[in-house]
């Protein structure tokens, strides 16, 4: 892996099994096997995708629904293992694929901060030190000891974002999360992401909002049906993506 790169994606392909009905019990398995109905249908979500991201770069992934953007992010975050190819990353990753994954709804906000922080891999002492920062950024001072099943979805998202960004990770992966929360909180998030970028954090960003991609990212990659369609400066790629003539072709 080259020293100046934060992420290297080498010929990654991802294949899913699209069985029409998921078989997940012994009973079904036996019945289907007897009736010779155990079909497997392959679906390649990504085909030989390769790219590199330099340290400190901010890259937006754009593309239609189902083009493979989220699959790519999950592979980089280590959640999915690619069928072929490999991904190399340098440094710590703060994945924000879905905020608040791993919250336990019976526990209070305080307990969830420690649970969620531990899931991301933060040490306990660090979480204790920055506990007040997390709470005040999320604006939840009054609700610290309330079980989060009573929280609104906006409050959960704020808490999740606040925990995930409390330290500078080397790589920040953001999937469609700026669509939650009100206008004020979105701006707070963008400000924090920019501050992290100023401190040399590499950012991977997925959004359907082209404006946000242009606003936050320097570079962009356009993924179309599992292939890289275009790679380059964010403005250029986004304009091409939005160009109606291009889509007709």
């Amino acid at each position, binding site marked *: 892996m080259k020293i100046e790169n934060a992420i290297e994606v080498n010929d990654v392909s991802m294949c*899913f*099994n699209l069985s029409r009905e*998921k078989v*997940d*019990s*012994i*009973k079904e*398995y036996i019945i289907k096997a007897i009736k010779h109905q155990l079909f497997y249908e392959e679906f390649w979500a990504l085909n030989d995708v390769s790219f590199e991201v330099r340290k400190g770069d901010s890259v937006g992934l754009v593309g239609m629904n189902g083009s493979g953007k989220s699959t790519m992010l*999950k592979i980089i*975050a*280590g*959640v*999915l*293992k690619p069928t072929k190819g490999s991904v190399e990353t340098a440094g710590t990753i703060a*994945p924000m*694929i*879905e905020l608040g*994954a*791993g919250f*336990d709804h*019976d*526990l209070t906000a305080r*307990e969830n901060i*420690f*649970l969620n922080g*531990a*899931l*991301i*891999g*933060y*040490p*306990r002492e660090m979480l204790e030190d920055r506990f007040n920062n997390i709470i005040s950024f999320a604006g939840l001072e009054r609700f610290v000891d309330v079980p989060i099943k009573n929280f609104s979805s906006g409050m959960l998202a704020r808490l999740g974002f606040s925990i995930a960004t409390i330290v500078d990770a080397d790589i920040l992966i953001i999937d469609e999360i700026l669509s939650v929360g009100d206008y004020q909180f979105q701006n707070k998030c963008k400000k924090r992401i920019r501050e992290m970028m100023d401190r040399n954090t590499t950012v991977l960003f997925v959004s359907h909002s082209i404006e946000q991609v242009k606003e936050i990212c320097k570079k962009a990659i356009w993924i179309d049906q599992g292939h890289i369609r275009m790679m380059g400066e964010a403005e250029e790629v986004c304009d091409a993506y939005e160009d109606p003539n291009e889509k007709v072709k």
Partner: protein
Amino acid sequence: MSLLSVFVKYRNLISQLVARDIKTKYRRSILGLLWTVLNPLLMMTVLSIVFSYFFSRYGNIDNFPVYLLCGQVIFNFFNESTSIAMGSIVHSGELIKKVYVPKYLFPITKVMSCSVNLLASMIALVIVMAVTRARVTPTVLLAVLPLFYVLMFSTGVSLFLSAVAVSFRDLMHLYSVITTAWMYLTPVIYPMEILDKAPEWVKLIVNLNPMTAFIKIFRCVVLEGVTAPAILHVQSIFWCAVALAIGSLVFRKAQDNFILKI
């Protein structure tokens, strides 16, 4: 060793997950952890009243309440931990899809939180031993060995079950039937003498049963105050090794496909 370094790296997560299980389990009950002590005590009372009558013709079992509780504590831990750990991957589906965490932490932390219950039910055993004025000998200290065996065995079985349950969800319903049969093939309630007239194959199964070995060792050191025969230890270590080997092998092979199935 890589396994050890993962444990060190994720020790905070492990303690958080275990604490979560314990907190959510007892949050809504007033008596809280006390139930873990009360439950085996009450069960033991009922069972020993009923069965000491039934088994009286097989000669008097020395201190039947303690005999029963020894078996119960060990078997219940195995039953509870494996049953809960079995669904751990399936129920953590949302999490596994979004964050990278070594997946075997889920079944293992379930077994660990159940072993907290095991320690609490040891209190029940101490109470019953005190009430029945059981003879306490220094061999009691050796009780950690059978407890360690059953912990390792349950971990292996849990790894296996949690991986298989992802592909075959209905196994979770089937498993309670299996553990019931398993319990009757383990001398938890009945004395070993009851098997004298049983067919040979039943005796063979009961004697090969790993749970029998764990419970026998436990009773030797706690109830009878003697060290257990070496053959029982050999048998126990053998079964622990088999369970851990098969469990981790199956789990490792299946873990990359979990995310596609949950």
